[in-house]
């Protein structure tokens, strides 16, 4: 029966299960694109197969249109990008009319990022989005460093809890709180989000910084202070993911300086259930696709067949040699 010329192939390796859960939100894979780094999705059609993404977080919307901050709005720093865009957007009504109809048919889960100036405004925006078809989740941007109000809500645990709880009270849509690293105790803020009923938290928004042109005695950004993103902040983001994972059970979406598949894997092992690709979209518009293509190989290298084999598998005991860590991770995979 068998064809003698047909080479004997090893049995096919089943494709790994890339799906992940963030509370009530289930995503086809853990590679998402971050708010403010992917436009409204439509801009990327020439570069990215949008329906392959684990999720799209379009640019943050506010209740009313905002022109945003005066240029310069970004400046490149060492291995990083400092930005102060200032939530330039056309407002929630224009988003629902002009952007969402296209986004919801693009094939990827759409996680709408909203920023309210106050707790009641967050609740009002969530109420307006409740029942609108095509929204997989809400990401609460309580952490934009470039508008004065957002950061106040995101730096106080009780305010964070009240924003999340208020939003949960008016919508059945899963809720993710995006937190700022510019706080003394990230765990306390994350606990506030968890107590408020968040399905997950996104760690981290940008780190505040400034850049200076000393010859002109001028700040480089029109708004003086901006938020730093890119490879320069990856260790800070990983530290935040680590601290929260050690203390709390809430699912984490990791973001901050991810360029390579190694970066993605570091976040998963440290405790992120999914990652968002941000500044890398600027450096290479195909970045998200490249990472998605590399993910199954990286899972196979760890003998992992599903994302849960990896997530939070970091051996936290200090000082283990790299080889030991790898062996330990492998053992854990077999045991699970």
């Amino acid at each position, binding site marked *: 029966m068998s064809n003698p010329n047909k080479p004997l192939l090893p049995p096919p390796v089943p494709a790994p299960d890339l799906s992940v859960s963030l509370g009530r939100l289930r995503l086809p894979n853990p590679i998402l694109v971050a708010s403010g780094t992917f436009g409204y999705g439509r*801009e990327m059609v*020439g570069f990215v197969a949008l329906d392959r993404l684990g999720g799209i977080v379009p*640019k943050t919307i506010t209740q*009313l249109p905002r022109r945003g901050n005066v*240029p310069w709005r970004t400046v490149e720093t060492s291995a990083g990008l400092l*930005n102060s*865009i200032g939530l330039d957007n056309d407002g929630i009504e224009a988003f629902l009319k002009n952007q969402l109809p296209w986004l919801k048919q693009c094939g990827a889960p759409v996680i709408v990022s909203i920023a309210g100036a106050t707790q009641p405004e967050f609740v009002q925006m969530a109420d307006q989005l409740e029942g609108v078809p095509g929204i997989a989740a809400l990401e609460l941007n309580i952490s934009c460093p470039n508008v004065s109000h957002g950061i106040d809500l995101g730096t106080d645990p009780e305010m964070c809890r009240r924003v999340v709880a208020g939003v949960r009270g008016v919508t059945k849509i899963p809720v993710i709180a995006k937190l700022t690293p510019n706080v003394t105790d990230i765990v306390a803020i994350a606990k506030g989000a968890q107590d408020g009923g968040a399905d997950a938290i996104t760690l981290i928004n940008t780190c505040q910084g400034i850049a200076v042109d000393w010859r002109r005695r001028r700040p480089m950004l029109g708004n003086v202070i901006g938020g730093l993103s890119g490879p320069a902040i990856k260790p800070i983001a990983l530290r935040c993911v680590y601290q929260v994972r050690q203390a709390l059970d809430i699912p984490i979406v990791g973001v901050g300086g991810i360029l390579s598949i190694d970066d993605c894997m570091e976040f998963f092992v440290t405790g992120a259930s999914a990652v968002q690709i941000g500044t890398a979209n600027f450096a*290479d*518009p*195909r970045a998200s696709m490249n990472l998605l293509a590399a993910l199954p190989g990286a899972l196979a290298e760890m003998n992992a067949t599903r994302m849960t084999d990896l997530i939070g598998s970091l051996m936290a005991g200090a000082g283990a040699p790299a080889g030991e860590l790898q062996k330990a991770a492998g053992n854990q995979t077999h045991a699970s």
Partner: protein
Amino acid sequence: MHTPSPPVVCYADAARCIVADIVSHRLVAENTYRLRIDCPEIAASALPGQFVMLRIPERVDPLLARPLAVYDTFTAADTEPSNGDTPTEARRRYADFIYTVQGKFTTALKELAPGAQLLVWGPLGNGFSVPTVDHLLLVAGGIGQTALLALGRECLGNKLYGSSLRSVPRAKRVTFCWGARHGGLFGDVTDFRDAGMDVRLATLDGSVGHRGTVVDLLDELAQTEDLLHPQSIHIACCGPEGMMAAVARWSAARKISCDVSLEAPMACGIGICFTCVAKIRDAFGEWDYRRTCIEGPVFNAMAIDW
């Protein structure tokens, strides 16, 4: 509260993102280099006034790409511009860029030799669209000539970019006014002369051409030119912001139509980062920040809130 912008319509859908080899790289003026890359996917479709984003792959410092105007495109690696070079788009393969070394990206770029690779995406932006006029005036300041050569060539009918099915308006003549701080900054001026343009140069120090600015060149031109019929003249301009604002004022005072190509810092070039915004006015005079990369870089000078 301002009027919300209408939806953006000029997406980078036709752009390609590729890794391209550097074919040649040479000094053409003080601190100024001419770069040729092998990029058939981009060279075939690039139109006058469009740009690409160029990045040194795998590096995190510099991390991001930079926008550079497409200066010219060619069918063969070793050809210099020649009049009558009208290949079909299928054969067009190389693209040239000219840049001045200014920051860490261009400092790193100038060290790259032929054979090195660059990550490139483009062509991007709207490019120039010129009305049918007798006389096209190209006005450049500094490195702004890079956005204008292809436009002048096309309007003189000595080269066609993009699809061979495109029809472009012809001008009876093209005058190219170029201003710089000093004469050492003019590189490859022969490209413009050989294409059949009337070339006029100005330098602030008087080392080459007229001592003064491009506006002086325009004033000089106006003395010999019949400006009673401004609709027969069109200006396309690219250079430093102050210079473009001066040219915009000059043309507005004479009711001559003027398009400018804005140079803004960009992080992505494709509309996702909202870095490169400029204050643009709508028909009702209301301004909003517009993304230079996908709603420009070419705008009518009257629409810009200088």
